[in-house]
């Protein structure tokens, strides 16, 4: 019977087909291609859509691929990426937070007022903002979890109510400036090149160390593991990406001879740090596991002893806290908070970003990286169209069309998956 196993590829002994024994690079590659063909595309389709956008805009305008514009893009994408990352947490539960954008506005107002009116240092201001965000999330989460009001209605009510709060705080039609060195610097300043290099090298080194240590443990305990060559290739790839980006952004990209702009925008490390944090929380902690479980089958999660209500409340708190950071980042970029901050289509764009990246609105599927990729897609559209300076109506139409294009690349490449019946 053992002959059958080898030829059929199906297991006869317990889990003989398990990946434990895979050990050379060719196998790993075949396996990857197989998984791709089976529909497990991850973020690949969204990345593909992004590549299409880059090619289109790159051809349409010669400034688009320029260093200056790409650095600007990083800053422009910052706020929406943070907001979308926060939204992933409630979307994972199958809930929605319509108020996230406005929550960001309210929190940024608190931050700005703490600094301007109360003379607090920037970090106190940010803490105040995040605390307000967490509080808002807590209240909404409780209403959703314990009273059982649909999150659409709760957050719609907060969307409206919080607009009133901003109006009240800022004074109708006014604005609060954000002139703090550090906060403003977040959007308009860059990391000194030397520091950038050091940071980049440290990141690569840490990653290499962790990867190698993990591999050593896997070997020692005889667990399933990738081939060693693959580990090396992954380290190499990360090093290349990090160092090339650092190298490029450390060049002077100013368009005026007497003014130097060089270094990595401060926004970038903030986003990367939060991305790493949330990826760890979602993928590697019990809390993250429980979040997926509640989103996938709340009743099963409840039966497994998970406190579903607490999961909901914490998810809303994280979402609103991230919205607070997004609001502060938006304020840092525009230099002020105004009553329209976080209103308008901000939220729709952020949810759209998460969904384009591959997060499901029905809960249970999504990652932090999805939000970042989707956020970049949205930012690229605005950035590219901004360079083309067309009439407003054309901008609207093209934005819609491009959004659809980016999403359909994703949809079409995922069709296999649904054909596989999963």
């Amino acid at each position, binding site marked *: 019977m053992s002959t059958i196993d080898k030829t059929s590829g199906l297991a006869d002994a317990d889990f003989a087909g398990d990946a434990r024994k895979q050990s050379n690079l060719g196998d790993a590659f075949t396996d990857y291609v197989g998984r791709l063909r089976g529909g497990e595309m991850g973020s690949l389709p969204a990345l593909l859509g992004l590549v299409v956008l880059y090619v289109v805009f790159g051809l349409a305008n010669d*400034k688009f691929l320029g260093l200056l514009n790409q650095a600007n893009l990083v800053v*422009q994408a910052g706020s929406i990426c943070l907001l979308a990352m926060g939204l992933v947490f409630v979307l994972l539960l199958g809930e929605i937070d319509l108020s996230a954008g406005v929550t960001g506005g309210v929190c940024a107002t608190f931050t700005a007022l703490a600094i301007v009116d109360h003379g607090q240092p920037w970090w106190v201001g940010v803490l105040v903002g995040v605390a307000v965000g967490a509080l808002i999330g807590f209240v909404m989460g409780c209403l959703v979890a314990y009273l059982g009001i649909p999150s659409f209605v709760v957050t719609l009510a907060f969307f409206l109510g919080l607009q009133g709060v901003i109006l009240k705080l800022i004074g109708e*039609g006014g*604005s609060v400036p954000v002139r703090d060195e550090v906060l403003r610097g977040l959007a308009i300043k860059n990391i000194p090149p030397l520091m950038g290099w050091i940071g980049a090298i440290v990141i690569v080194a840490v990653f290499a160390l962790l990867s190698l240590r993990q591999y050593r443990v896997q070997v020692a305990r005889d667990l399933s593991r990738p081939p060693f060559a693959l580990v090396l290739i992954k380290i190499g790839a990360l090093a290349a990406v990090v160092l090339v980006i650092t190298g490029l952004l450390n060049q002077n990209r100013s368009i005026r001879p007497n003014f130097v702009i060089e270094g990595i925008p401060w926004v970038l490390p903030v986003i990367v740090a939060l991305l790493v944090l949330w990826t760890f929380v979602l993928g590697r902690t019990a809390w993250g596991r429980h979040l997926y479980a509640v989103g996938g089958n709340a009743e099963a999660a409840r039966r497994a002893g998970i406190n579903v209500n607490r999961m909901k409340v914490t998810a809303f708190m994280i979402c609103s806290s991230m919205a607070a950071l997004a609001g502060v980042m*938006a304020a840092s970029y525009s230099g002020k908070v105004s009553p329209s901050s976080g209103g308008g289509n*901000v939220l729709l764009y952020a949810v759209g970003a998460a969904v384009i990246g591959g997060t499901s609105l029905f809960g249970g599927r999504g990652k932090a990286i999805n939000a970042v990729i989707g956020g970049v897609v949205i930012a690229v559209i605005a950035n590219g169209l*901004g360079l083309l300076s067309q009439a407003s109506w054309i901008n609207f139409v093209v934005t819609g069309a491009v959004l659809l294009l980016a999403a359909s690349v994703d949809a079409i490449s995922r069709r296999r998956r649904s054909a596989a019946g999963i």
Partner: protein
Amino acid sequence: GCGSDDNGGSGNESSEGGGGAEGGEAGKIGVILPDTKSSVRWESADRPALEAAFDEAGVEYSIQNAEGSADTMTTIADSMLADGVTVLAIVNLDSESGAAIQEKAASQGVATIDYDRLTLGGSAEYYVSFDNNVVGELQGQGLADCLGDTEANLIYLNGSPTDNNATLFSAGAHSVLDEISTYTAVGEQAVPDWDPDQAVTIFEQLYTQADGDVQGVYAANDGLAGAVISILEKNGVNGEVPVTGQDATVEGLQNILAGDQCMTIYKSATEEAGALAEAAIALATGGEAETNGTTEDSEGGRDVPSILLEPVSITAENVGDVIDDGGQSAADVCTGEFAQLCEDAGIS
């Protein structure tokens, strides 16, 4: 039957008529303001000025805000008519909805006044406003004054594409700046909903596209100007590139004091509200108001008796005028780092 607006302790934010109003015979005046977001003025300047004027005259009144929605405005108008106002003043969000409101009011025998914006095809008795064409021209002239006779590349950052006033402002500015042959327009874009957050990205892209070779920026109001200055600061040219504005907001005045903004437009709400109050009270008591001209309603084919006021261009020299007029308080403008600048400019 309109003497029973005594909804007790509903707070002092209530705009219901003041306590001493014995306005049984004078009738009730309704005012609908357009929105809260395009400009500071409606809630922070017009509302108090109108309240003060009406209280002074001892008439009953109700002031509401349509929050930028024409439907809301229609709803408010309905309820005011239901509430028995005898004079209705509106700042229309667009001519058609305004005309519809006025049509309905007229059908119930209520007199109407166009405040700040003319309702084309409407039936208002009077039009009280600053001249919007003049605003754009003053902005253009102000930018030209700041730039001087040099070669200059200009970027135009217009107001909301759905707002007709934005179109007028831009046209006015173009009418001045396009005459000056050394100026070249290198980019122009409208900002949806006058949203300063979107304006930042829009301007950054226009600036990048122009390779930073920009010597002046037309920004339709102070909010957009602030967005522009944010990007200029990022590129180290704030203060070198003049930027226009409008509305004389705290933000705008501070930017002018700091030298980052070239000018703004001040439309004295006190003055305008006073004019409106005068006209409304006259109508409410069955009299006539004093006009200083007419404005042509191209659609309705009539000349509307008008009370037209002059906007004022504000530069670093006359920031004090706004504060003296009560448009902004010195305390708001001269906070923190601006205290010194205020002192230098002779503002207290």
